[in-house]
């Protein structure tokens, strides 16, 4: 297989506090291929946003990357200087965040922000940059782009603003777009529009997408592969269709069953007992073991490695270990 666009290896992110060091990410590894859409799901606090922040070098101090490596097309980027990282952000990795208002500066027009970003990363004239900006806005579906480009962010509605942010993220032709909950702040009827725009335009330009969301439905529609995080660890990763229809990790199985759907017939939802442990109280062995219906002795002692299940699928669960123990046959 070709060299991946982004490769994350055994990433560890720690937050020192006075009550000990919290491990927000614990040995997370995954790849993103060229032009691929990787979905990243998990409950709040599972570490999905921190993974994104680590990749673009924006972990808030005192948090820090305490181990592992991040490679972007063969270049190691987790140990770059802030200055070098700034050049990668925007140019090689575009970003779309949950709240469009935080990504746009309210004091500048959309044109000023787009043109400045384009010209920071590309050596072209102001006029060419403006033409490019208008074309981009048009492409993300802003009506009368040539006129509206001179408006300020607050002149746009929520959905339109998020389209502007997408244009801003893509204006320097990045190789990877990091979208952290891009639709969470939007109305249901607008969410679908935004996801479509993001997916289409990235496919057109061959940009890979890392889509962080808690909404399994968005992942199902958009992603090629999905990574499921639990308590800062990767539980399962694999092609979307397989993970959704035939989840292997008991946590993923529970998660999928607990989502009410428009077609389900049963009266009760599948529920996982308890809740995700806090970072200061992660149990020994598998982090999911106290809630797992298929738990056996080994789960309480050893932390499961990601087990290769073939077809680019990995599951961190002892159930799938070759030397499955007797007690595991439940």
């Amino acid at each position: 297989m070709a060299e991946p666009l982004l490769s994350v290896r055994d990433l560890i992110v720690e937050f020192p506090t006075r009550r000990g060091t919290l491990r927000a990410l614990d040995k997370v590894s995954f790849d993103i291929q060229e032009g691929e859409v990787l979905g990243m799901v998990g409950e709040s606090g599972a570490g999905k946003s921190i993974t994104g922040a680590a990749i673009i070098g924006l972990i808030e101090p005192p948090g820090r990357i305490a181990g592992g490596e991040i490679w972007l097309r063969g270049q190691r980027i987790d140990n770059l200087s802030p200055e070098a990282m700034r050049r990668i952000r925007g140019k090689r990795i575009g970003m779309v965040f949950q709240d469009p208002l935080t990504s746009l500066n309210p004091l500048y027009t959309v044109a000023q922000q787009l043109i400045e970003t384009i010209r920071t990363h590309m050596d072209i004239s102001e006029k060419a940059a403006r033409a490019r900006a208008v074309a981009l806005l048009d492409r993300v579906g802003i009506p009368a782009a040539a006129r509206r480009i001179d408006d300020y962010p607050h002149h746009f509605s929520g959905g339109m603003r998020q389209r502007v942010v997408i244009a801003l993220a893509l204006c320097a032709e990045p190789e990877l777009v990091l979208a952290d909950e891009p639709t969470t702040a939007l109305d249901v009827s607008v969410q679908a529009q935004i996801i479509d725009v993001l997916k289409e335009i990235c496919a057109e330009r061959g940009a890979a997408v890392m889509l962080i969301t808690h909404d399994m439905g968005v992942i199902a529609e958009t992603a090629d592969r999905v990574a499921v995080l639990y308590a800062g660890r990767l539980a399962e990763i694999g092609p979307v269709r397989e993970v959704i229809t035939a989840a292997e990790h008991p946590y993923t199985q529970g998660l999928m069953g607990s989502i009410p759907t428009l077609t389900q017939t049963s009266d009760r939802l599948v529920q996982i007992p308890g809740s995700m442990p806090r970072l200061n109280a992660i149990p020994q062995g598998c982090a999911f073991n106290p809630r797992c219906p298929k738990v056996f002795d080994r789960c309480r002692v050893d932390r499961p490695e990601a087990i290769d299940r073939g077809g680019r699928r990995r599951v961190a669960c002892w159930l799938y270990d070759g030397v499955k123990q007797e007690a595991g046959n439940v």
Partner: protein
Amino acid sequence: MSDVLLKVEGLTRYFDVSKPWLNRVIEREDKQFLTATADVNFEIKRGETFALVGESGSGKSTIAKMIVGLLEPSEGKITFDGQEMNFASGAAMRTLRRRFQMIFQDPFASLNPRWHVGDIIAEPIRTFGLAKGRDVMREVGRLLDTVGLSAADAAKFPHEFSGGQRQRIAIARALSSKPEFIVCDEPTSALDVSVQAQILNLMRDLQDEFGLTYLLISHDLSVVRHMSNRIGVLYLGRLVEVAEGKRLFTNPKHPYSRMLLDAVPDLALSGRRRQQVEGEIPNPINPPPGCTFHPRCPHAFERCKREIPQPVAADGSLTACFAVEEGRI
């Protein structure tokens, strides 16, 4: 005892969003009003779950707040078990107030961070004088047990609990006055899906156990479908369709209901292509004339721009749409 527990008639609420008086005089502007809900009518039967769905700005939370007395209606009336609600009269409302409760969206904001969990749950018991002395805390312990926590949790503070556990505490508080009717305002939208399932299951169990009636406010159609017997769809403060639960999902009438259904992400991976929904919700200060949905509606015609459609019964549902009324869709 009548079958209808709650009846809402012509419920309307304006908000004055004018600039301050001095600015208005200088800038020669008129007073501005935002119509949060307009002429909303519905009934909730004893023991059922009635849901109101809509996007932000549809007025669903405003309706919930008017029903529990957090907001005063500008027009219209609310009748609870045959008695008209009049929140201005303290004494008459006291007995009525005990019979309804509310569960809020954000379990991080709905519990006073400086209070012990026990005192939070005991507040309604003490306010209504339902128990005295040691019996109060015994009742609190029993309630905590009912919602799946332990009596020992009464001595803790809210920050020691996760979001789902906090929502259980909020539910225990709502149950503590032994209400018949609970308004649930987006009870799970701040929670993770696996926790959402726990809370929804708990709400169902409690409904069966105590014969509760729910008004469920939500923007999540799959939650609404899972929980409710009947559903009202709101758009810009107006009820556009009221239908039996499953019926709305198999046979939506109003074009907006259809659009909302189309916008739900497809988890079953049936390959169904979502229909693109055009446009966004207009500004409620200056809503479009006639049917407020007409600028986004694929079936709009001349009449929709002039007249406001009234709900018409057809096929077991009430729909406010000229296209449906005239049999064009």
